[in-house]
């Protein structure tokens, strides 16, 4: 048994679980694949690659670029956390686009003929919701800055604010 574990890298129960998993997945795949093996393999692999090696690097890069560009901004911005007032509306708007881009870009050709509903409103709905998200975020930031300023006036000596990192220190947060 010990020899097995050393060779395999885990206990026999692990191997059994794995075999069960691949047995079930293989059984389903045997029905799934024959219709269009290449198309489906491309979709499965494309799902993983598209998310892990495309979507995540892209949004991480965007996030870091914005952090970099705004690193030396007016001192009135809170030292830390301000980026979330930009990050959240952008990400939520992007999330809605990711889910609903076929409707927003009017891609389903037969939609209107089949449902009697027009495709035209979705782009405006998305833009409107995006605008509302940015407005809400701006209002929240304004409230936060106001509260910070009032707190600063009340206690000018005690230092209300987290000092944050020194100017030269790296701030490469991806999330």
């Amino acid at each position: 048994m010990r020899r097995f574990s050393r060779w395999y890298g885990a206990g026999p129960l692990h191997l059994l679980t794995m075999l069960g998993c691949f047995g079930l997945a293989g059984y389903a795949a045997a029905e799934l694949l024959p219709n269009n093996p290449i198309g489906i393999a491309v979709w499965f692999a494309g799902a993983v690659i598209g998310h892990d090696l495309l979507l995540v690097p892209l949004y991480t890069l965007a996030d870091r670029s914005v952090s970099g560009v705004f690193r030396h901004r007016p001192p009135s911005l809170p030292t830390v956390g301000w980026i979330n007032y930009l990050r959240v509306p952008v990400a939520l708007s992007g999330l809605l686009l990711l889910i609903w881009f076929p409707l927003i870009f009017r891609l389903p050709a037969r939609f209107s003929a089949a449902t009697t509903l027009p495709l035209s409103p979705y782009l405006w709905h998305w833009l409107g919701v995006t605008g509302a998200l940015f407005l809400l975020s701006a209002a929240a930031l304004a409230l936060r800055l106001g509260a910070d300023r009032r707190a600063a006036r009340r206690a000018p000596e005690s230092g209300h604010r987290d000092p944050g990192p020194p100017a030269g220190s790296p701030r490469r947060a991806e999330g």
Partner: protein
Amino acid sequence: MKPRVKSLISSPPGPARRSFWRSPVRGPWLTSVLGLALLASIPVMFVTGLLSYAAYNPDLSPVNDQTPGKGWLGFYLFSWPTHPIWLYRLNQGVHVTLGLTLVPILLFKLWSVLPKLFEWPPLHSAAHALERLSLFLLVGGAVFEFATGILNIQTWYKFPGSFYPLHLYGAWVFTAGFVVHVALKLPVMIRALRSRGFVKELRTNLAATRPEPPDAGYLAPVAPAEPTISRRGVLAFAGAGSLLVAALSVGQSVGGPLRWTALLAPHGQDVASPDDFQVNQTAASVGIRASETGAAWRLTLGTEAGASTAPVTLDRAGLLRMEQHTASLPIACVEGWSTDNQAWAGVRLRDLARLAGVTRPSSVLVKSLEHGGAFSQVVLSAGQIMDPDALLALRVNGADLTPDHGYPARVIVPASPGVHCTKWVASLEFRG
């Protein structure tokens, strides 16, 4: 030779080095909270998905089965009930709305574990290799299922085949990866959840946020950057995404005065006339011609091939002279949208069975005037025929059916998927 071997073993620069991953909020606790949310929700997706398949009664007849090769995967199938009348409406509303709501949680969860994709060495044992292969099924399957579902409800059929087999068999591949992942990670998740108090984390603001200590699971950073968001902030971020998506889509399933709130959902718009309600196939879109539904239209009532009784034919006036019943029933689509209850009026299916000479029908084959198409014919079960609310409807909400709602006659069966409530009915073939 020795230095060369060493250089092969040590990780190359870039994402394979742990120091590359600097987010100070990544860590086993955060991953586990997101994982717990998925662990609670994915089984609901699984069960509502299986129920939706059962609602098509695929075992009743090959006509109903979009996935005849299912084999053992249909082990649980049962005859779909007709009550409560909102059963399918609720099931699909939950399946679709919950699925949409889980998208941000899934994205955050995948983000939180991304360093593991690049762990070094990539494979350190046979067990590890198998585990990584199962993760390919898990992640590939998850994105595949979400993508096919989300594209299907928008009727943008760009996936590599017919939706039903892709989504059903894909679900089983995903489930295989999911079950094995839960089995392997549940102890790790419980340990991580216990490592920090949930309420205490919710009280920890950005200034007080410290990274989780580096863990054996490759998640927490060894060289963390300064935090720009707290862990409670990340959870609020993901939760806000879920709430937003749900708020902008649930109205298409709730209906009534709330439908307009589904600003980003395929059936969030009210139809042009206030007395009217949603459809997903107009008469024109499936090629129904006015000449087929006019005065020349006849309903053929038959029995199984070879039976002694000759088929009965009825025109619309003849159907209207029969005993009329009213049933208040919704239309609920597999795509998740549904309508409020509509007042349908017409002839009971069981009365038509008796007229055809079958007092104890076991099933009925309903054929539409549609030319081809996966749902131009359907088989209903004995329970569905005998339900007093199961009608061949001629009128709805006090008026004749409109062409888009199935004029001259359509089937309406309580708790049945919309596509099984056949429109533009041409014949009913009862089996004893």
